[in-house]
């Protein structure tokens, strides 16, 4: 029970990362489709893809930072 909070924090970080993985995967996949359909628009698609991926990643990092704070602040 002593290390329960660390385990829960790690689990939370893992769940956040699953969400980000699905999100970034969908964005990347759709961008690939779009570039395959319209190779001449690849520059614009890549920019939009990176912005969307960064927004998704930001939310996941909120989760990871919250988990990190959980590990660091709860006294063992």
């Amino acid at each position, binding site marked *: 029970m002593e290390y329960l909070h660390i385990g829960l924090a790690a689990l939370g970080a893992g769940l956040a990362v699953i969400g980000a993985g699905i999100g970034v995967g969908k964005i990347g996949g759709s961008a690939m489709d779009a570039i395959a359909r319209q190779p001449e628009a690849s520059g614009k698609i890549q920019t939009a893809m990176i912005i969307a991926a*960064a927004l998704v990643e930001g939310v996941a990092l909120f989760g990871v930072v919250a988990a990190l704070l959980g590990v660091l602040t709860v006294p063992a």
Partner: protein
Amino acid sequence: MHRNFEPTLIKFNRTMTAQKSFKIIVIFALAILPFFTFSQEDDSKIEEASKKFNAADMIMHHIGDSHGWHFFGSGDNSFTLPLPVILFTDNGLVTFMSSEFHHDFDGKYVVEKDGMKFVNYHENIYQLNEGESALQKNDEGEVINASKPWNFSITKNVAAMFLTVILMLIFFFSLANYHKKNKKAPSGFNNVLESLVIFVRDDIARPQIGEKKYMKFMPFLLTVFFFIWITNILGLLPGAANVTGNIAVTVSLGLFTMALIFKNGNRDYWKHVFWMPGIPTFVKPILAIVEVMGLFIKPIALMIRLFANITAGHIIILSLLALIFILESAGVAGISVPFALFITILELLVAFLQAFIFTMLSALFIGMAVEEHEHH
């Protein structure tokens, strides 16, 4: 004709790649073999050293800020660049070099200045209360007989930021001087910088802010881009500071973007935040609350993204290296050192990507604030 050749060609290529990868595997296995024999010989020595090893402490020490710039070694043998400690106490300004703490950050070594006593406890400087001679803590590890003075020290992170600022001044003054004298495109390093400046202008500022207004925000975007990029790359060097992985630094960067949005937001922008046109009236207050929250969440997201990305990168590299000492075998080094090298190279990409993302999203948010809407 062509088709007849293809199958043999592919087959030939396949055997070639198979041979090549086999060769690589054999060479790699041979390369890490010495580490395993070494580990068996020196087992007792490594065990002795690892008794004291705490991975979490080591990592936190490396990614945190400190009052001296530590390069290598431990205790009194360590090679540390002393940095000035600047404190505002109740009795006025106190300054001394961090070397006067003698590499101690457990609060044991007391420095006396102007009749006041200072200790460095976990990189926080405490001023001991009147009449006390040593730092005392209660059972929970909280300090009970000392207070924290205002600390304006030039810490490791501040020194690293100064280094970045000096580098940027040198780079861009030389580029500017070149263009004063010459009409041609520059060569060498100046050319690299110029292509990046044009990248920020043509791929970030222009499409996001718009042709009319982008020039006003170029100084900010370029400064932020190069500051983040150069500090990120300097942070990857061994013994360097983790500046962009410090939440205070990223908070200030986020605040700059927020201030620019608040100052330059036009009438349309604020109207779209508080009383947006084109939706039913009873939804407007609810959406206004969400939009006002969004005003603050945007810079907070910028700040967390940069902080977490850079800190996570440093933690991964340090954890891979810590595995050697946790598993008490030098053989692990054969695997974890190449993997740490791989992550370090990946971090070079992340260093650029995070500078790009920060600048891009700042430009996007500023562009949203200054955009001219057609009247509905």
